[in-house]
């Protein structure tokens, strides 16, 4: 392998353009060798801007001799098939969240990665946020006493311009707001507290994909909580955890402040620092790429491996399989 692994980026959409390419340029962790997209005009434009030597139309044109690792930034329904193709060729893969649209696909992907002896990482970038790391520690080591309950909310009025119906198609996206936005927060929940013991899931889907949903969750130790997502209304956009000796609230960004409210009225409100710095969104993506490259070069496990990525997909499946109408518990419009 060269000093820097040679990377193929599969998908030249908004996330690649807005986040991955600038982050790869800044971090210099990989040698970006090619950009693949069926929209070759878009791919060529970005390749020229970022001095990427090759643009390919099809992932089948990627060869192991030229590429060490791939970053998959495609619509959800393509995650499994494209990952399998690349793993088969012996190429390490970082696939964006969700790992795939079904746990069966995830299992096949994991088996293939193991068979070929390559790394399979999942782009659940919030695992790298200092807030997530802090919450996990606070829960495990009882910084504020035992966890009693929690209340997570994430919701915005969707305002991005979309050229395709991908996000509104059950077949392509695998679901609605839970699949798209919710998978991040579910992963944080699982990472910090473990797999839920029970989930009751409600959404407003009436034959399409859900835009507003809510999960009522019981974790080990009878810790109960609520998790809600929306793409049609703005929510509080924070995670609140009630502990024995205080209440913590953190926002959902890499740089979000931590707020601690003690029962005696004392409050702490500060950004969390990592290595003396506040983490930016770009910084979190760099940490994710750094973890991937370290895993490849040092043959160590990825922080979010395929084995971890499958857990949130199983939860999503469980939710959709046992969904109840949100009308049963709250107004829905």
């Amino acid at each position, binding site marked *: 392998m060269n000093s820097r692994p040679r990377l193929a980026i599969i998908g030249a959409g908004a996330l690649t353009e*807005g986040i991955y390419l600038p982050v790869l340029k800044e971090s210099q962790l990989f040698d970006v060798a090619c950009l693949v997209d069926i929209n070759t005009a878009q791919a060529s434009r970005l390749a020229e801007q970022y001095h990427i030597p090759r643009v390919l139309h099809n992932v089948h044109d990627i060869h192991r001799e030229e590429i060490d690792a791939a970053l998959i930034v495609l619509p959800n329904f393509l995650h499994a098939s494209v990952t399998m193709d690349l793993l088969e060729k012996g190429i390490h893969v970082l696939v964006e969240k969700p790992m795939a649209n079904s746990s069966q696909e995830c299992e096949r992907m994991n088996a293939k990665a193991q068979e070929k002896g390559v790394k399979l990482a999942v782009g659940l970038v919030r695992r790298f946020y200092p807030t997530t790391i802090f919450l996990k520690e606070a829960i495990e080591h009882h910084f504020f006493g035992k966890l009693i309950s929690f209340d997570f*909310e994430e*919701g915005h009025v*969707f*305002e*991005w*311009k*979309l*050229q*395709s*119906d*991908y*996000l*509104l198609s059950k077949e392509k996206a695998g679901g*609605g707001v839970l699949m798209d936005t919710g998978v991040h927060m579910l992963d944080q929940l699982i990472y910090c507290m473990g797999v839920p013991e029970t989930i009751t899931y409600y959404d*407003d*889907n*009436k*034959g*399409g*994909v*859900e*835009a507003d949903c809510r999960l009522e969750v019981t974790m080990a130790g009878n810790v109960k909580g609520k998790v*809600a997502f929306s*793409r*049609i*209304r*703005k*929510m*509080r*956009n*924070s995670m609140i955890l009630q502990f024995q000796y205080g209440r913590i609230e953190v*926002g959902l*960004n*890499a*740089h979000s402040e931590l707020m601690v409210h003690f029962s005696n009225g004392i409050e702490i409100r500060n*950004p969390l620092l990592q290595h003396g710095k*506040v*983490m*930016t*969104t*770009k910084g979190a993506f760099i940490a994710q790429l750094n973890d991937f490259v370290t895993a490849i070069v040092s043959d160590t496990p990825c922080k979010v491996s395929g084995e971890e990525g499958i857990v949130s997909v199983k939860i999503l499946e469980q939710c959709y399989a046992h969904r109840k109408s949100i*009308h*049963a*518990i*709250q*107004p*829905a*419009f």
Partner: protein
Amino acid sequence: MLIENLFTLFNLLFKMEQHVLEKFNGKTILITGATGFVGGRLLEILAENTSAKVKVLVRDYGKAMRLGRYNVEMIKGDINETEVIEHAVLHCDYVFHCAYGNKGNDETRRQVNVDATVALLNASRSAGVTSFVFLSTMSVYGIENREWLTEEVQERPDATDLYAVNKLEAERLVLDFAQKNAFHATVLQPTAVYGPWAPSFIMRPLMNMQNYKFPLIENGEGVCNAVYIDDLCQAMLKAVLTPIALGKKYLINGPDQFSWKDFYTDLSTFLPGTELINVNQLEMAKIYDSAKRKKPILKSLIGLFKINKEAVRELLQYHFFAQLATWLYKYLPVSVIRKIQPLNPTKNSDSIKKVKKVVLPMDQASITFYTNKTKIDHRKAITELGYSPEFDRIKGMEIVETWTKWYYLN
């Protein structure tokens, strides 16, 4: 709220004779403007109460998140493209034309509002569509103080009100087309349409009430001619089923009469931090003149940020800009804070400075609108369409209150 109460509320949401709804089972229906307020609600009613196949025309899928909850056929395209509308009307029994263009210059808007309406009519007739409803507005009559307004009154829209001018031109073409071709096209002229998601009479006033002292002109004694969204949808559905509605126009209003003071006082109680104030016409004219003279450069800059909300949100992802925004909120003058408050990225932040509110300026057209005491006579719709409005102010506002708390306060 108790679950039993919720179910009671949902039963109120849409009431219409079952035998009328059954007539839409198995039909194919096109709705234009379905990403908007009226079209969106009509789609929900059809999807939830009938087995009709619903098609919608969508320009930007990003605005279709509410529609995406239903099993509807989304046709991507612009209403100005002939091929798109020819494809959209194919095999349709009914067309509900609710789309309205409010972007671009006057000519661009006219193309969407007038030219596209004619093209859609032609395409519908050619495709064998049975009936067509064009959603217009009572604004086509302009605002003159008279006791009653009926469909017989001569239309005189305010020449500066491009919305009304375009709607009038389009509705005349629709009625003419219907008569000449014996094609079942009907024009509906609703009053102020309100309900959950209503941009003009619910969402904007709520935002204004939070950021300003919201004025009740002349004590809010003007007549509020308003119709709850589901009543308008009832009229639309009945219009396509009523043969004598061919080539006719109908005013559509709610069942009861009340004032703007009644309406906005109700609304102001749904959210904390709202404020109403009585202002007479002369005072308001002065407030408006004074506001107009203030800092156009700042206004333009703020307007730019409002348009580029996505860019602002992106910037706020970065710690530096997030900190800068926090600092700005703490130290900028009150007058500037008030302008950028709607961009506030931290909904629940108590770090935001409490600003002293000023009175919301209103132009002369708004003053005239809010002081007018004309009542609407919609007996023609009741007699000919069988229109039977169900939602008086109390019922309608009960639903708006629940929605407001769900939408703004979670």
